[in-house]
């Protein structure tokens, strides 16, 4: 089996394949030595633990999928072919890759240490720790090392211990491994580990599983002995970290915050853990009661009863622990908020799709629509399907096995009825296993279809055969469309664009067929003939903008490799060419039409740089914003497009596989609501740099440069379509994101990029009565920049439940917030902003009312929320104060529309920071609990509440708001911080527009810079750092992010809670 990975996996970013090879084979031996075989595995033979079974009938469909023992031999023949280490990840050297996304759940995907969740009986602890074991015995694990591994520059060979991902939380894991190895050892674990483990417990009412998630214990309910000969609880599962993995104790809870009053320490010190605590009696006053925190240390005591099948009536899972929001002040977890873990059998959960890629608002799917309606929570999925993964299993196979009726790709959650037939988990049709699939190349044995990688990975990529092509795969084609009117030249952006292109021209994703072209426009359209053989680029001007045509259709798009000289010439001379222009008009519409004509034969990517309102030709727009009405208007007008020109053109582009990315650099109103349509429906992206100016706004320039670099060099998929399938009975009714929905479940994506997120809302059409679980599959078919047709398939499996309390226990507050935000954007465009605001408030009121009336048995005073939703009102308030939805504060229409675009288009992790920024105190950074990422030490200060009361004059605070980072310096800030970090003698010397931290050779400076750098690495865009003090103009925007505070036009958090409470108890 292990050998297989060597061939099947394409380790995308590394250069040396031989290293992993040998380490893989080494570990194969290890595995064999360690695992005598399933039959001897005492755990596997254990009768199913009642914990799970007591509540649910046996998990039939899934059992088949038990982890398998490693195959006996190395794989070296058969249909799998070594896949060249191409593409999936175009992390270019030097290109900062997505490290672990900020709010990202966890390390779960970060592998090696994860070996730990395995019961000691399977893998001796000694073996559990070394990364290599897990790295290869389970491909999954390495597959998830987000970017950490290739620390810019030459990436180290993958399978080596450095595998221990650069990701963050890993530092401490090794220590965790041991304690986890057996429950006995667990008992002995010092309290520190308990803290670390608390986040593990998935919020669920099925405690058997809850516990198993992180505590390897015998009695795994999923395992039904003898259901099939070939199903065993194999050791191979050792590798992957199931998402339940604890977030390693990066901080010492309670230790670093001695200033907290004792009463708070109990409740708030381990907020991270607080979310997911061990079960607590439902109505034992949970707050200011030390009990919950003692219980974990009584771990084993807790464990055994839950395994013996304690039912809901007697105990409540942590996610349902009742929190009185009015009393419990500090609800924020110490670190990132972790998504709940679906209460699936452990073996299934281990291979389930990673929550960063595929996430559901409810990790337990209600059985009926009426139950869902009762819960008043939105049901939907959030996807980040093309996320940069540093490793991804890639399968080359001449036949791709799919269900014959619903066309679902075979996945880990299908059932093998016998060796010859499998049952689709989406439509339940029984399909034949094709002859080819019977052969297991791993073991070179026949008749083990369930061991194929397709059935072992919830995320994988196929190299598609020719049936998946309507035409030969298109080459990478890039067209740059530049605004060169007077206003544009004035901002000086041309220099930056040309410079960036020159620097990255060799890093543009593509192969020898890559084509490039340029168009510039003011009141006329200028084309550039770059045909090979010309001594210099030739400019062709078309002034008939009413009826645009291509002057020399053949030579405007040229092969980048053959004509690189000319292209470079052009890029060098472009900024000067228009230096003296007096043309103020701008004909964007005709330029876009020209771009469409130029690319319609091949498809490709158009990058449009625009600096003002288009004023000529089709698509001309008029200013619709009245700046005086920004703050006072009761309702915001003009959120919808003014013309359908851009939408129509975008749909034409979409039909021809052309995507348009819009860069808007402007100081005045540009009507992003109308212009944005061009990108929105052609699956492009929108970048907006308000008040861009080369001299006046250097921070904006830096941000633009960095974003442009990422944009030019990131991976890209062409002529893509994505289909989202879900189990029979569920249906998708609304889509959010940038694309065109071509038919009920098919999204047309002319381009797909790794920074795009998608969301869908679902409804339950037929009751899911007889189902234990439902599955969702997103299949993204695209042409890589190397001209390969590939299919990336993600499958997620979630349990079906029939009680409201289970639904609440599985609620994922971040996903719900993001989905609500997308829905609210739609609502504000179709109805009105105030409608959208009301709808969001009502969403929180309704769900808490439903919790109060249907789940709580004992009524208490106060505003009660389940622990898993305790942040819900806070997030809703944050949304109400977000740029997109706020009222009463002066917000430029374009800023607002851009914020709305981002809410719909960004993946969850980045949206959460936009909604609820993270505030850290940074003047006292220590290495305590720090992370070690590629030789750097990253301090991990705790997240503070967003309230001015948390700011102190003698400190310095860093606010990470996603696309911008503020460093607020208190008036009496520690002089040590000023001199050591900022290099300034005193507070008064802090400049008003400081955007850089000087590189000083002091420990404090290094820590701060490491921390800021680490925050920046976690996202694909470049947040600008603003150092601000009381006099800074940006102080207002800093304070606007203090969402727990009252402003003239908005409620404080406490007032908001009172409002909700009033409504809830009506």
């Amino acid at each position, binding site marked *: 089996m292990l050998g297989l990975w060597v061939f099947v996996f394409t380790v995308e970013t590394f250069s040396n394949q031989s290293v992993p090879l040998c380490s893989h084979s080494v570990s194969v031996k290890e595995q064999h030595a360690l695992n005598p075989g399933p039959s001897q595995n005492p755990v596997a033979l254990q009768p199913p633990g009642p914990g799970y079974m007591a509540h649910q009938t046996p998990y039939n469909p899934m059992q088949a999928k038990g982890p398998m023992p490693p195959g006996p031999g190395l794989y070296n023949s058969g249909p799998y072919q070594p896949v060249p280490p191409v593409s999936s990840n175009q992390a270019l050297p030097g290109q900062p890759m997505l490290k672990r996304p900020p709010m990202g759940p966890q390390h779960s995907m970060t592998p090696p240490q994860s070996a730990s969740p395995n019961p000691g009986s399977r893998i001796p602890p000694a073996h559990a720790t070394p990364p290599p074991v897990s790295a290869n015995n389970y491909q999954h694990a390495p597959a998830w090392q987000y970017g950490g591994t290739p620390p810019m520059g030459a990436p180290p060979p993958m399978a080596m211990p450095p595998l221990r991902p650069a990701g963050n939380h890993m530092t401490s894991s090794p220590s965790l491994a041991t304690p986890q190895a057996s429950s006995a050892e667990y008992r002995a674990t010092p309290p520190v580990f308990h803290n670390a483990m608390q986040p593990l417990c998935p919020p669920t009412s099925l405690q058997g599983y809850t516990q198993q998630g992180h505590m390897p214990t015998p009695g795994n309910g999923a395992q039904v002995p003898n259901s099939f000969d070939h199903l065993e609880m194999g050791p191979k599962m050792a590798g992957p970290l199931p998402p339940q993995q604890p977030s390693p104790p990066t901080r010492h809870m309670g230790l670093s915050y001695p200033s907290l009053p004792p009463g708070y320490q109990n409740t708030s010190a381990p907020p991270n853990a607080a979310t997911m605590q061990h079960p607590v009696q439902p109505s034992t006053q949970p707050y200011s009661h030390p009990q919950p925190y003692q219980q974990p240390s009584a771990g084993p005591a807790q464990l055994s009863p839950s395994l013996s099948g304690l039912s809901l009536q007697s105990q409540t899972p942590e996610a349902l622990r009742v929190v009185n929001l009015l009393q419990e002040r500090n609800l924020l977890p110490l670190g990132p908020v972790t998504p709940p873990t679906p209460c699936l059998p452990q073996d299934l959960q281990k291979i389930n799709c990673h929550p960063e890629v595929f996430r559901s608002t409810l990790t337990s799917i209600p059985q009926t629509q009426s139950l869902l309606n009762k819960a008043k929570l939105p049901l939907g999925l959030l996807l980040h399907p093309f996320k940069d993964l540093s490793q991804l299993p890639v399968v080359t196979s001449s036949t791709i096995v799919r269900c014959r009726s619903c066309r679902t790709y075979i996945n880990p959650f299908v059932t093998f009825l016998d060796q010859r037939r499998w049952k689709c988990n989406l439509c339940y049709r029984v399909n034949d296993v094709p002859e080819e699939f019977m052969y297991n190349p791993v073991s070179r044995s026949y008749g083990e279809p369930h061991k194929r990688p397709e059935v072992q990975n919830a995320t994988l990529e196929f190299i598609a055969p020719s049936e998946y092509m309507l035409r030969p795969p298109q080459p990478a084609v890039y067209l740059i469309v530049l605004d060169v009117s007077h206003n544009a030249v004035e901002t000086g952006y041309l220099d930056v664009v040309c410079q960036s292109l020159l620097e990255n021209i060799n890093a543009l994703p593509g192969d020898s067929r890559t084509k490039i072209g340029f168009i510039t426009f003011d009141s006329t359209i200028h084309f550039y003939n770059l045909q090979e053989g010309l001594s210099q680029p030739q400019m062709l001007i078309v002034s008939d903008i009413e009826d645009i045509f291509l002057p020399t259709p053949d030579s405007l798009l040229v092969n980048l490799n053959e004509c690189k000289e000319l292209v470079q010439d052009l890029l060098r001379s472009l900024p000067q060419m228009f230096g003296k222009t007096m043309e103020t008009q701008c004909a964007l519409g005709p330029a876009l039409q020209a771009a469409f004509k130029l690319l319609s034969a091949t498809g490709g990517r158009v990058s449009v740089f625009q600096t003002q309102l288009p004023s000529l030709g089709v698509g001309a727009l008029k200013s619709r914003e009245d700046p005086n009405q920004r703050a006072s208007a009761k309702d915001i007008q003009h959120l*919808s*497009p*003014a*013309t*359908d020109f851009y*939408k*129509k053109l975008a*749909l034409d582009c979409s*039909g021809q596989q052309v995507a348009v990315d819009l860069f808007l650099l402007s100081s005045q109103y540009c009507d992003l*609501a*109308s212009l944005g*349509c061009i990108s929105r*429906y052609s699956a492009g992206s929108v970048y907006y740099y308000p008040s861009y100016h080369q001299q006046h706004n250097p921070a904006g320039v830096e941000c633009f440069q960095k974003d442009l670099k990422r944009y030019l060099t990131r991976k890209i998929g062409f002529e893509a379509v994505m289909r989202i399938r879900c189990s029979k009975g569920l249906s998708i*009714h*609304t*889509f959010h994101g940038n694309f*065109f*929905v*071509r*038919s*009920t479940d*098919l999204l047309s994506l002319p381009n797909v990029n790794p920074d795009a997120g998608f969301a869908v809302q679902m409804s339950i059409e037929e009751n899911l009565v007889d189902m234990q679980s439902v599955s969702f599959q997103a299949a993204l078919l695209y042409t890589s920049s190397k001209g390969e047709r590939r299919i990336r398939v993600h499958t997620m499996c979630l349990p079906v439940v029939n009680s409201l309390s289970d639904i609440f226990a599985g609620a994922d507050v971040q996903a719900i917030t993001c989905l609500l935000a997308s829905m609210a954007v*739609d609502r504000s465009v*179709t109805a009105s902003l105030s409608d959208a605001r009301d709808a969001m408030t009502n969403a929180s009121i309704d769900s808490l009312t439903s919790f109060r009336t249907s789940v709580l048995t004992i009524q208490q005073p106060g505003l009660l929320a389940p622990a898993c939703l305790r942040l819900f009102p806070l997030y809703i308030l944050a949304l109400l104060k977000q740029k997109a939805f706020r009222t009463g504060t002066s917000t430029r229409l374009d800023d607002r529309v851009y914020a709305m675009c981002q809410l719909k288009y960004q993946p969850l992790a980045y949206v959460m920071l936009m909604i609820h920024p993270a505030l850290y105190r940074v003047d006292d950074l220590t290495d305590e609990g720090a992370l070690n990422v590629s030789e750097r030490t990253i301090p991990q200060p705790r997240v503070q509440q967003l309230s001015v009361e948390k700011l102190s004059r003698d400190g310095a605070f860093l606010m990470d708001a996603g696309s911008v980072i503020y460093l607020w310096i208190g008036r009496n800030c520690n002089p040590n911080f000023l001199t050591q970090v900022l290099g300034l003698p005193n507070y008064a010397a802090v400049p008003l527009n400081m955007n850089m931290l000087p590189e000083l050779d002091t420990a404090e400076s290094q820590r701060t810079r490491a921390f800021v750098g680490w925050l920046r690495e976690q996202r694909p865009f470049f947040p600008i750092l603003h150092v601000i003090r009381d006099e800074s103009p940006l102080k207002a925007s800093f304070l606007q992010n203090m969402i727990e505070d009252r402003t003239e036009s908005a409620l404080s958090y406490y007032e908001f809670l009172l409002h909700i409470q009033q409504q809830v108890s009506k």
Partner: protein
Amino acid sequence: MEAAVFILSLVDCCALIFLAVYFVITLSDLECDYINARACCSKLNRWVVPELVGQALATVLMLVSLHWFVFLLNLPVASWNMYRVWKVPMGNMGVFDPTEIHNRGQLKSHMKESMIKLGFHLLCFFIYLYSMILALIND
């Protein structure tokens, strides 16, 4: 005279029935994935105004011939047709917008609307038929 009015309405009603059936068929084609949203919407948008005119014609005919009951029956449908054309947002491509038809259950509500209209037109058809025969007999 009376008979002529109803014969005209009957013809008009037949056209509207055909149109309603066409709407239902096209929408269900979209639902079943036989055509894509763009094609479906451009087909349907073309017929939105003719449908409006046909319905308005029937309404006006009833008004001028002073058949109050049938007029009042037709009035809501005619005003609904106008309202929905009038309320189309500026940035949309008509009553049926390909970018939104799959969102928020719009496809279903369009389908429902077409079915209701079909039923309504059938009802009208029989009313006109009956009235026409009555008018012919009375003559």
